[in-house]
């Protein structure tokens, strides 16, 4: 692309008509995904007005194709100068050497305040003590629940410890009766068992993420709590596909609680009938030992610099611009995404929506899933292995043993890399420093 551009310029110069219309601005390319990719064009125009020497070419890519497209672009050496990256992908792109460490840029930056961040989300961008991405927007999962059904069961809010929470679920089940449930935990989602495990102190993997550790008592206990909800009829053992329409069923009261993310706040507002709007709200997740242990997953997207990019200075300026409080506020307004900077949360658009308050609390208590390229595959395997015990067809311990065996086989390469000193590992001292 660039080379043909140069060739055209050379030709123009040769024929004596160059110069008049030619662009002296630095051109950088940015890729955004889904809705974010659409609205970032507007922000880029404002950035250009402020920085007349930089021209930003924005390209939107659909989320479903984003992962494969970014990887093939990396292999084909055509990644843009800076791009949006789901923060669970940062580990993978670091392993690929596709993105640049941001530590030197951050040290010199006044626009990005590393203290004005949610620590758990920030941590998803830190690999081996080095920062590779800046949070752009955040998300996490909280408990959506039917206030009216809880009230009928004698509860005016969600109790914050597992024991009490379970008691509340039993009370709800008694009130709603047969064929209705206290909570929906879709059998084809790995997030719920993983969240419960992390809440109970399980690390899921051990030895620099080179070994599976699902038979660890902390995970076993959490898994037992999770399975107990199905066994005792508090949660239906069904997948998302078997629930034709989650919104309808939630409205009908087929289940009173549901663990899901911020995107569903808008969906619930739009899809539930007006008379049901006051009946639902959200709560931070309960934990095994009360509210403080009620952690959830650190999700969202980060902004990263491509290692192969030629205009890193200009690209970094664009990233800094997107992270400014007023731009973050505008971005939130345009997309409905939750802003990465806690200070921006004072923005009226967000404080007006009561269901989002629980997210603010929850985001202070989020942790990253294990940071390794294989995580998605491991999570998928966990999901496959959990379905048997959920449906009561396989004992929990044999499912976890099989899971450990499968995951250990997947991690063979990582163990080899670790033995040969080729694995980027978290050194505790550096990691503590990187936690700002």
């Amino acid at each position, binding site marked *: 692309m660039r080379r043909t551009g140069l060739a055209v310029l050379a030709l123009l110069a040769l024929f004596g008509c160059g110069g008049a219309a030619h662009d002296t601005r630095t051109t950088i390319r940015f890729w955004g995904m889904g809705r974010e990719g659409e609205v970032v064009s507007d922000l880029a125009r404002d950035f250009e007005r402020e920085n007349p020497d930089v021209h930003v070419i924005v390209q939107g890519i659909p989320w479903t194709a984003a992962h*494969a497209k970014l990887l093939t672009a990396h292999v084909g050496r055509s990644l843009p100068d800076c791009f949006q990256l789901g923060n669970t992908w940062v580990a993978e792109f670091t392993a690929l050497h596709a993105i640049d460490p941001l530590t030197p840029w951050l040290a010199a930056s006044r626009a990005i305040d590393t203290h004005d961040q949610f620590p758990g989300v920030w941590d998803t961008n830190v690999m081996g003590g080095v920062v590779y991405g800046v949070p752009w927007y955040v998300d996490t999962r909280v408990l959506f629940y039917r206030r009216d059904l809880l009230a009928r069961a004698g509860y005016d809010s969600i109790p914050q410890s597992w024991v009490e929470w379970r008691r509340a679920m039993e009370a709800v089940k008694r009130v709603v009766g047969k064929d209705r449930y206290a909570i929906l935990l879709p059998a084809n989602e790995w997030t719920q068992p993983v969240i419960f495990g992390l809440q109970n102190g399980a690390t899921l993997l051990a030895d620099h993420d080179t070994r599976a550790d699902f038979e660890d008592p902390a995970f076993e206990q959490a898994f037992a709590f999770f399975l107990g909800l199905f066994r005792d009829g508090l949660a239906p053992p069904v997948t998302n596909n078997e629930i034709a329409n989650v919104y309808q069923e939630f409205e009908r009261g087929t289940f009173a609680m549901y663990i899901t993310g911020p995107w569903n706040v808008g969906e619930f507002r739009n899809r539930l009938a007006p008379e049901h709007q006051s009946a639902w709200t959200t709560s931070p997740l309960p934990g095994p030992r009360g509210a403080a242990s009620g952690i959830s997953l650190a999700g969202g997207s980060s902004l990263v610099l491509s290692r192969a990019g030629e205009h890193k200075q200009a690209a970094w300026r664009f990233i800094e611009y997107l992270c400014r409080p007023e731009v973050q506020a505008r971005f939130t307004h345009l997309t409905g995404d939750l802003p990465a900077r806690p200070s921006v949360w004072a923005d009226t658009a967000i404080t007006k929506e009561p269901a989002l308050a629980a997210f603010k609390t929850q985001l202070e208590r989020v942790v990253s899933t294990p940071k390794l390229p294989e995580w998605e*595959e491991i999570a998928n395997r966990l999901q496959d292995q959990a379905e048997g015990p959920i449906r009561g067809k396989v004992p929990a311990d044999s499912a976890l043993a099989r899971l450990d065996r499968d995951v250990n086989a997947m991690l063979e390469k990582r163990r080899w890399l670790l033995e040969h000193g*080729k694995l980027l590992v978290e050194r505790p001292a550096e990691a503590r420093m990187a936690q700002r």
Partner: protein
Amino acid sequence: MKGSIERRQAQAGRWFVLPALTLIGVFFFVPVVVGLVLSLTDFDIYAIGDPSIARFVGAGNYVEILRNPVFWKALGNTLYFVFASGPLMMIVSLAAALLLNAKLARARGFFRTAYFLPVVTTIVAVSIVWRYLYHPHYGWLNFALGKLGIPPIDWLGDPHWAMPAIIVLAVWKNFGYNMLIYLAGLQSIPEELYEAAHLDGAGWWGRFVHVTLPGLGPTMLFVSITTLLNQFQLFAEPYVMTQGGPLQSTMTLVLFLYEQGFRWWRMGMAAAIAFLLFLIMLTGTLIQLRLSRERTR
């Protein structure tokens, strides 16, 4: 003297085939050899970052694939698809060709285009429409079945029905291509043969079995082999409609290959699956050729 002309002609011939050979070499043989080498390594996401990390694992990938239950599931699904949709496709496309070739047929050009249209329509557009048709609550298919008193079926969500749904879609999408080939085959059967058969008192069925089918022999062999090769490579339909689900009931070999290669970035493993698929298809084709040879003997 004569020898030297022949030699010069042979030399000129070599120059003439050289461009074609170079192209085939660069774009076919080299990739195949690279793929074969790749299938003997554990080239993965770490190796994309640093190729020196790839290790030679010999037949390790092949052994691992044969031990992977998903591979056998995918093979089973693929064979189910091939043996269910292959004959169905042959029958539907032949029937369509016969209808179009019939003397009574009106608006032949229109129907020929209409039947061929799905072949040239992109699968993504087609899949959106078919997802509506298959929708358990709002789909026309369930609406029609409901009129017949059959309760609604979750076509793409039920592990038993997802593959039949994919088969129907794939046959509808692709029969037009075979139909055109049959049509060409039908038109090359001399009219006199039908007249002679008619004079000998052969009815409609007699003429079909004793004139049309033998006349279509080579066409049918061609169609059956290309259909087999295509069906084994089923990918786009389940990829856009079901992503291999529910419960891996529509996971096919190529989808499995894609997942290993482009979802988990195990390139070595994906290359090994490709070679296994090649061996399976080669065996299938050889069996077909043998059968047809025995039939003609």
